[in-house]
């Protein structure tokens, strides 16, 4: 049954009302209604990870997440992590490790890494690779991406120990 209705989405700390059908993937609303560029359409099947966002702090594949499951939850996109003036440590690490070629997959890499590092703040390189197993990169930037995630983890740990 066609049940178009409004959905209250909380994205990057701001409230948005969007209108659509409950099964429509969250990604369409983020990109077309809220005009965010971070999450990318890659496959629509949850296979590649280019669309990854965080929902309540957990990685989510927005291309395969019906909007009804994201309603009233805390959604964070790449834009919500930080910007050019105040990048998130993970974003800064990706800049410092030059971890992008075309960069289309990078949203997913950063968002997955960010969620992963909250679960495992001191990963081994093998654990980082495992965490990113289902995020596909076609340019072959894997080496730089792993380096960026390791760098981000190191810095986050260093800043935590530095804080009183």
């Amino acid at each position: 049954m066609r049940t178009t209705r409004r959905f209250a989405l909380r994205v990057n700390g701001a409230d948005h009302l969007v209108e659509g059908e409950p099964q429509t993937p969250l990604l369409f609303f983020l990109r077309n209604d809220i005009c965010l560029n971070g999450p990318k359409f890659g496959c629509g099947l949850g296979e590649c990870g280019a669309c990854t966002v965080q929902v309540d702090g957990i990685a989510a594949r927005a291309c395969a997440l019906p909007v009804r499951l994201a309603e009233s939850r805390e959604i964070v996109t790449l834009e919500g992590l930080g910007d050019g003036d105040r990048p998130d440590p993970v974003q800064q690490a990706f800049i410092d490790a030059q971890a992008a070629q075309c960069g289309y997959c990078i949203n997913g890499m950063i968002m997955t890494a960010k969620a992963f590092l909250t679960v495992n703040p001191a990963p081994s390189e093998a654990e980082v690779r495992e965490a990113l197993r289902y995020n596909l990169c076609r340019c072959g930037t894997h080496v730089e991406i792993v380096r960026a995630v390791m760098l981000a983890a190191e810095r986050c740990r260093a800043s935590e120990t530095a804080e009183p």
Partner: protein
Amino acid sequence: MTNSTPPPSLSRQALLQRGGIIAVVAPRKGAPAGDASESALDLHVCLTAEGRVVAFCGHVDLGTGIRTALAQMVAEELDFPFDAVEMVLGDTADTPDQGATIASETIQVTSVAMRIGATQIRARLIALAAAALACAEDEISLRDGRLYRGEGTAPAIDLDTLLANERLLLPLAESAAFKPMDHHMLIGRSVARVDIPAKVDGSFVYVHDVRVPGMLHGRVVRPPYSGMDAGDFVGRSLVSVDRDSIAGIPGIRALVVEGDFIGIVAEREEQAAEAALALKAEWRSFTPPDLSDVAQALRAHPSTPRLLVDEGDVDAALGTLEKRLDRTYVWPYHMHGSIGPSCAVADVRADGITVWTGSQNPFPLQNDLALLTGLPREQIDIVRHEAAGCYGRNCADDVAADAVLLSRAVGAPVRVQLTREQEHLWEPKGAAQLIDIKGGLGSGGSLPAYDFHTWYPSNAAPTLALLLTGRIPNQPATLRMGDRTAIPSYNYENMRLTAYDMPPIVRASWLRGVSAMPNVFAHESYIDELAHEAGVDPVEFRLRHINDERAAELTRATAERADWQPHVGPRMEADGEILRGRGFAQARYVHGSWPGVGAAWAAWVADVAVNRTTGEVTVSRVTVGQDTGMIVNPAGVTHQIHGNVLQSTSRVLREEVSFSQTTAVAARDWGAYPVLTFPELPAIDVLLVDKQHEAPLGAGESASVPSAAAIVNAVYDATGVRFRELPLTPERVLAGLGQLPPAAPAAPQLPERPPRFGLWSKLGAAFAGATGFAAVSLAIAPAIAPITRPDPATWSAATIERGRQLAALGACAVCHTAKDGVPYAGGFPLETPFGTVMTTNITPDPETGIGNWSYPAFERAMRAGLHRDGRHLYPAFPYANYARTSEADLQALYAFLMSQPAVRQENQPSRMTFPFNLRPLMAGWNLLFRPQGELKPEPARSAEWNRGRYLVDGLGHCSACHTPRNALGAERSGSAYLTGGEAEGWEAPALTKASAGPIPWSEAELYAYLRTGSSQHHGAAAGPMAPVIAELKELPDADIRAMATYLASLSEPLPDAEVEARAGRIELATSAAANPATSPVARLYQGACAACHEPGRAAPLVNAGPALGLSSKLHAATPTNLVNMLLEGGQHGIGSMPSFATALDDRQIAELAGYLRARFAPGKPGWEGIDAAVARARKTTH
């Protein structure tokens, strides 16, 4: 909607028209002779009085960081700071037409003009300063964008003073003396890429992110001849389009049909996407090519031999060989595999067209669009944005033309996004290749003869819309591009090289290392074979015969870096089941039209590990040396080499386009076309040879070229087996090792079950017989008089609310609402074994609904299955269950229904099979299976249990689906109760101890399932159960708990510890570690399913699906529910699993189902009838 088009850089014309500039210009391609206006001039480099440097390049950045490297070169020659330089790449209105961005020639070839221009501006600036300061030019120096005189430390004159009144247009010189390398300040230094900061915070605007005011969304529907672009049927296969098939979808603005081109424009993207899936079109049939044996297909395809080289007398020399070696090498079709499917925005206006595109070829695209629209190319403005990496030619041009056709149809800007499936199917593939080499060893290890033949099937992949609309002929053309790096690096005394040019078999074009990668796979495998025959170390053997000093130098340097240990023959170093080996290969990539231009040299030492039990090959380390001439940005070159190593390793180990007998290309997702993932990364050691004094050669593709041979040579060293066909899948490797692959899951080839109608017609006959005598003597039930619709105010709000919950429990709306229809207004076709029952309108409309039904009429319907007028209702309406409901509850339900808005909607007739189409016979049915009355509590049980039973057996009518029915369609009684039935083409699993899942239902899991739709030990609700769960949300927690309590009493739950232990054992046995991906279907699972279903993910995922080893669907007796789930997904229900109906074809779904059963329910027998289940599910889901 905001406008995400970035602010334009200073445009060519604006710069040329303003004062205060020095610009280097050239006549614009195609401009009328003698036209001296700005529009007739190309601008290469421009310096403004404010100190901005703008450089223009007709090539584009494909994500390799070329924008940064080009800016470095301009800043270097100009002696300006790097930050002062802005690059404009690929926009047709602004940049010079320098052709397509191919062959890694941007640095090597295209950059030259801007370097010359920068040199010219620098010289003129110094001349101007000298004149202004009345001194000699050699007294002036330019550093970091400032002009100094003599030893002065402060700038002697500023740019503004010098240029404010100038408008100097310098004609581009043919050549210039570039700065000597030892003066380089920027070239040769690693510079951070300018694009990355915006790419990591989402502010970068890819073509996918372009949003223009008033923009609509488009999708295309491609023909069934997937990935084929030549043949009589191309552009001529569409028979008809059923416009009504998308009539119910809101927001549709246009359906555009021209030839075989179909596009849909909608206000919202999801509307266009839905319509593209829903649109019904009829196509003529066609015969796909047989590509089951690529080598055979290439050999059989018509081709034209082209003799590239014929030195000496090869035929005579072949007769002198001491050891003759004739070899054949086979290269599969590959995909570019851009991570983002192509996208474009077009705005077709009266005065011209603007297209925002990620094209690799803006100028050729402009020509194509002129051909498509009939407009002069000057009126077509191509604005280039970065897109997902392309590595050759993907669908970027196709989608731009699609967007133009759609925008033209609606008179508004349209964004077209291809789907993943369309990109996979239609991208012009990297061509397969077949290479024969005849030759061998002469006396003393000499190389007397080399007879090399290479077959390459490709055209230039014409832009699809031109073909589909019939603008250009659909006859095959041939691209002569199979000759790249056809000349080997070794001194063969007599040599004949022949390229067999041929039209494409499937749509093909250039992909990174085009034809050179396959040719070098052959050259460098063959030389390795010769070394082995000669009994010489492979590196040493190469060095003896190599014909190029830079290649020799690189070979020595790379071997040394990798600590190459000379050896003869395969070493086969074993470490348990792992065999280790090391291989070498080198080549110089030669591109461009024959004989071509040499780009960078690259050499590989690859270390591999081969698992001799599973056949899996791991590339553990790659030492890669590159002589790329002058290096502009070392960090950029290193990164590009990493990319080449990883992408080519992926191609060599894993990649191969699969084909189907019905649609040509078969692979439509990352499951069917798997690429390298993070855990498989080799360690990479890059050696950049210092050649800063040489010309720059670019780094785009060269490092890919030796990959295949290096890896195959390493596998030979590890196993003693030589592979001459790729990819090195575990199956191929095991076969090569002379072993059988591990037992594959049973192929779903079992006979189909007898057609359902056969069985049911027999039952029908039985039914007719059983009731025949009774039918004549049965009285037709009397009608109950109609009433005026009661005033809803009759009932209290509390009663209506209670009724609302009961309606949810009964899931009335689930059946009494049509797809996209008004709740309770009926019209849903309920498939039953006896025909299709059309559900009726139960809104209080007096004429078409139940508005004139009194409570007694309603109650009689609920308890006895009789319409108000006395007709018998079909038992698809579960009145046998409803009969057990209490009077008070039925009253409340009546109150609720009567309080709903009345909707006038005529009921449609049901389509029952004989004899069920004879309604009076239903009376006989009732005689046979007379419903029981109101349920009486069992005093020995708890109140909660009794409440649960009341809900389950009454309005909840669980048994209507979950209890098997007898031949006459009545629920079986006794021990069959809730032991599994069927509903709308789904299996309704057993809810008792007969449950097929490996872990019995517990109260907690039943509660979780009924409350959330998902149980960790059983899986997620799907199919007809999903809307039931959605309705149950209305019920209070206590009722859900009561249902769980009652249902749990029908099972034999395990103790918690045993549950955990059993689940753990199952997860372990079904894990990826225990099930290496040694078949295509295993890799399909890995790519398509594992991201969400693999237990033990390193980090949690919101979309995670249940652990498949515990899922009831995998343990069920039939594949029905699994297949349905794969095709329908859970998006429409309570879950988030996407439908794989468009991503996987019937064969893939069937194979996947067979694999999943074998892997995740290893104790259960393989399923029969998977193919039939897929066919059935296809009919009902799409």
